[in-house]
């Protein structure tokens, strides 16, 4: 739990580092901060205790989730390259500080014991993300995305808060273990309607954050408008934290009324899978495709959350890790290619054609992109395959067959759009000049790619810990 305190302090320290007028120091400093936080987090392994007047709970589950979040943050920071050298328009110190603050929020969403903490964590995370989305100040789309995200997000948080209030009204408690006990007894007898409405509202609030259908409408625009680096951050850290919170509520506090919410999630899972995958097929923009793909991955994760079996937590963790690593490498490749084309004064966009001919002069980048696409598509030899495999097993164990069949069909659809990127990189004519990568960038890409392959061959390395 010390990681929360440390990260808050580091965030402030980062702001002060900004005064040094030395942009070079920020990146290594932030990486070091994240590593220290990760170390502090791991130090809590195998200890179970409550913090801040029973507001937060640390246990192995929370350590695991926080670790996945911190690893994703580390990778995103590593490929941020200090946010360019544009003195006037960028403020790297602030960006890094806000990223650290948002991680604080994410970890709170993982460790909350009290619904108030869930709300506070979610707000810290969300407000940070609204700001980061709008950091490309001169870009109209970035501004639009930030405003859209903020308005929709505020609305969703409102629903969440209302839900929490209703649950409090029905059970008289904010503590999730208290609620769990009360829900169990209430479910046996006559539970007040308030409770059910409250539960549904809380679920809706969280589903919005993880961009599940039909609460996904903000996702494509926000993903496309935000600078790619923050899109990568958003689609990995926010999603992992959101699912951690969702899992803790569904698997814990709301277990008693499983029979009520399972049908809602049943339906929404199928809807999310179908909307995410089918719409992704029609996208021209790579970034927008990744937005819809992130919706579809939310669908897979919802499938296991719905199954609610003994392995669910490790399935969610493994899937989140596999998905985060692959997504970050995909965004990293996109960023560096887009930037090179821009500096050559070419008219660029973030469509699939940006990768045309990538393999010719940049075999490493093309390979990294390929592995990450294969992993997202769930092809064997990559971590993504095992992620899907674990989720399908969970769904089978619970016997939820119809959403499972939908998920299987949709993963076949997924191959189509993920392969479009591979096809552009290898088989289409185009010209991408050889790109000189900074060592840290190169190392990060190699590490993420190796991690994807190693986990694809020996998933037990990580799965046995989760």
């Amino acid at each position, binding site marked *: 739990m010390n990681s929360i305190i440390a990260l808050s302090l580091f965030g402030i320290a980062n702001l002060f580092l900004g005064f040094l007028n030395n942009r070079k120091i920020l990146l290594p400093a932030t990486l070091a901060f994240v590593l220290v936080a990760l170390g502090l987090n791991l130090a809590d392994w195998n200890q179970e205790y409550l913090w801040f007047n029973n507001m937060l709970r640390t246990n192995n589950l929370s350590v695991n989730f926080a670790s996945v979040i911190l690893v994703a943050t580390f990778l995103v920071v590593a490929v941020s390259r200090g946010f360019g050298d544009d003195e006037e328009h960028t403020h790297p110190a602030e960006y890094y500080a806000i990223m650290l603050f948002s991680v604080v929020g994410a970890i709170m969403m993982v460790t909350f014991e009290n619904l108030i903490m869930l709300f506070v964590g979610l707000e810290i995370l969300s407000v940070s993300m609204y700001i980061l989305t709008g950091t490309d100040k001169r870009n109209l789309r970035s501004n639009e995305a930030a405003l859209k995200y903020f308005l929709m997000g505020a609305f969703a948080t409102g629903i969440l808060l209302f839900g929490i209030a209703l649950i409090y009204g029905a059970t008289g408690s904010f503590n999730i273990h208290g609620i769990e006990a009360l829900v169990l007894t209430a479910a046996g007898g006559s539970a007040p309607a308030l409770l059910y409405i409250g539960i549904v509202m809380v679920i809706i609030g969280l589903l919005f954050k993880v961009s599940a259908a039909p609460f996904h409408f903000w996702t494509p625009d926000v993903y496309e408008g935000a600078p790619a680096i923050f899109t990568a951050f958003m689609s990995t850290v926010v999603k992992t934290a959101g699912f951690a919170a969702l899992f803790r509520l569904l698997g814990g506090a709301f277990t008693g009324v499983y029979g009520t919410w399972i049908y809602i999630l049943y339906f929404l899972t199928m809807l999310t899978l179908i909307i995410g995958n089918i719409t992704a097929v029609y996208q021209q923009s790579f970034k927008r495709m990744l937005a819809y793909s992130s919706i579809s991955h939310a669908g897979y994760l919802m499938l296991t959350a719905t199954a609610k079996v003994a392995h669910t937590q*490790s399935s969610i963790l493994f899937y989140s890790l596999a998905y985060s690593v692959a997504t970050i490498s995909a965004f990293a490749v996109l960023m560096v290619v887009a930037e090179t084309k821009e500096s050559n004064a070419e008219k660029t966009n973030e469509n699939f054609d940006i990768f045309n001919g990538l393999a010719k002069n940049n075999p490493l980048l093309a390979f990294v992109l390929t592995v990450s696409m*294969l992993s997202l598509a769930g*092809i*064997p*030899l990559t971590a993504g*395959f095992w992620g899907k*495999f674990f989720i*399908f*097993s969970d769904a*089978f*164990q619970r016997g939820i067959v119809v959403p*499972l*069949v939908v998920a*299987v*069909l949709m*993963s*076949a659809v997924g*191959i*189509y759009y993920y*392969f479009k990127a591979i*096809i552009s990189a*290898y*088989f*289409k004519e185009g010209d991408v000049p050889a790109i000189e990568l900074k060592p840290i960038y190169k190392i990060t890409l190699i590490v993420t790619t190796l991690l994807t392959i190693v986990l694809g061959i*020996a*998933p*037990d390395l990580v*799965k*046995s810990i989760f």
Partner: protein
Amino acid sequence: MLTLTLILFPIIAGLLTLASKGENAKTIASAAAFIELALGAYTYFSFVPDASTQFGLSYDWIHAAGVKFSIGIDGISLILVCLTTLMVPFIIVSTFNSNYTNANNLYALILFMQAALVGVFTAKDGFLFYFFFEAALIPVYFIAAIWGGENKIKVTLKFFIFTMFGSLFMLLALVYLYMKTPGEIHTSDITALYEVGQNLNPSQQGYIFWAFFIAFAIKMPLFPFHTWQPDTYVEAPAPATMLLSGIMLKMGTYGLIRILLPIVPAGVQAWGLTAIILSVIGIVYGSIIAIQQKDMKRLIAYSSFAHVGLMSAGIFSRTLDGLQGSLIQMLAHGINVIGLFFIVEIIQQRTKSRELARLGGITQTTPNLTVYFIIIMLGSVALPLTNGFVGEFLLLKGVYEYNVWIGAVAGITIILGAVYMLRLVQKSMFGITSRITEGFQDLTFSEKAVLFPIAFLVIALGIAPNAFLHITEPAVSQLLTIITK
């Protein structure tokens, strides 16, 4: 350990090839393929011909889920391991006359493919089987999509999505069976899956049957799941076509024998007739289309479609002869079809055309090519004393035992096969020399180095099929006792 070496060695060699350049890559890749061939031969000779699984080995793969990395070789596996180790060297040598850009990548992908194929044929765990089954797709996709023809992108993507789509159903079926295995920690060991599957009630077995059947039927392919095949064979470069038709489609037939028959005997009982009818439709339909083809590669693609139909019909007959015939035919068809595609490649390189109408008269300058082409063609037509005869005879006998009428219809394959194969040779090799076939060069040394052994195998297997039949027989008999229990 031997089995593991057979899988790992090509991967290591492939990585080395990837790191090397130009001529070096050629040397490393072919040396590796021949060492692997020697390993395969060693396996063949040290195999004790009984029904047991040999050279087995098992590690924990996903401990908490009870999934094991367990591999081993029995008679059925051995014949396919032999096919794989035997044909890959020829596939590699057959590329020496063509100029592929970044050839080292091509060789590396072929070697990776080999590793995955050996993995499929030796896996003794349901999920491991699936893992290799899918992993084999990736290298061949890239070979076809990088070095393929004009429409390669569209065609290869269609191929990939088709086969992946089918396999997902297999994954569902495997997970379903896995969940039913007894114990706190389930197991996906293949014999445990057999037991679970056999204890399901007939209607459940029916669902599982279709889930597996679609996966394998797409891979082989059977009618009506074949639409990806002709285009892919035509657009893919020669080595990919050889890999696909020579070895990879055997993953489907092998899957029928290893997975489908023993897991859901009652399902096969109920739906076997449907499967055989689909197979026989494929035989007749494929042959008739093959007769009308103008493009050599497309003609062989359809002939392969017809042949695999017969193999599948033999497997679903569930007779000793049918199964034995399908196994020996897998080997024979692999050898023949690789030989045929190589000859097409030679003709295409020399004349820049595969169209039968534009060819002809090649025999006049090419005694060697003519002899090899006719030998391989006869093997494919199943003339007695060639490798094709043994398999086709046993297969037809098996189907005949199952049902006389179906056997009779399937028998048409011999006549139709002769028609399209003879037409292929006649139109391309004999007749009047055309403008593009004038001064056709006879075979070079490396081409002879591929075709001579293939022609030799065509005859040797035809004379002494027992070399393989006695190896597969105990395993097949044991399988039949499991099925009919």
